[in-house]
């Protein structure tokens, strides 16, 4: 079994061994060995691989744990979904994902000003003690302004702590 890591576009990206690229029409599946167990280390390793790929590429991260029999099966799985995947890649082209969590009474107050700087957002269900939890799809060129705005909101909003991480591959926006 091999694991699907990400979907990118032709031409195939250079990938470090033991990863492989599998062409599927105008798309490329980036595949690698499947992890035997889930630990913070294996998850960070996957993230590092994807961040390396997204440095100069648009890509769709694939749900962790997606395994197929072999490279032929990977190509088939991608080709069967090429329209869906192509549309999803269009959606995230030139953008990255930023995560924002807020803790405190007025956590929701940070959303509107951040949404104004983003291409799109997915608001999650905050789990106590969080009061706001969302992912923002932000143009690469707008990341610094977004981060500056987070810092400004932190300064100007009382009783709220804002936690921002990223840039992440567009995990939360990987569907068209």
């Amino acid at each position, binding site marked *: 079994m091999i694991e699907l890591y990400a979907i990118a576009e032709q031409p195939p990206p250079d990938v470090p061994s033991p990863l492989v690229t599998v062409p599927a029409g105008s798309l490329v599946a980036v595949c690698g060995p499947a992890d035997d167990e889930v630990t913070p280390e294996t998850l960070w390793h996957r993230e590092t691989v994807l961040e390396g790929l997204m440095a100069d590429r648009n890509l769709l991260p694939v749900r962790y744990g*997606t395994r197929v029999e072999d490279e032929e099966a990977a190509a088939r799985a991608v080709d069967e979904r090429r329209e869906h995947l192509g549309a999803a890649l269009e959606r995230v082209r030139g953008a990255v994902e930023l995560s924002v969590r807020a803790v405190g009474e007025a956590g929701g107050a940070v959303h509107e000003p951040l949404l104004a700087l983003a291409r799109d957002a997915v608001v999650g269900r905050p789990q106590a003690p969080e009061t706001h939890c969302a992912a923002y799809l932000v143009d690469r060129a707008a990341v610094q302004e977004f981060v500056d705005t987070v810092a400004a909101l932190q300064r100007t909003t009382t009783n709220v702590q804002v936690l921002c991480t990223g840039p992440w591959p567009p995990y939360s926006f990987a569907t068209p």
Partner: protein
Amino acid sequence: MTTTIAQQEVALVDLVDRLLGGGVVIAGDITLAVADVDLVYVQLRALVSAVATAQEKGVMPRMGNAL
């Protein structure tokens, strides 16, 4: 930026939410053991609570380490 263990933990929670709950679903066959995922989630949620508590006490900076 100062990096603290707490910041790394927040980033880890964000990572787990994304890897295990995000990404495009390609094949019906996601062969991750549910028990593994549940265990990771439970451990991480405990960490988030710890981070929030630390923040209330004003002992950690405001931004995640990944930025």
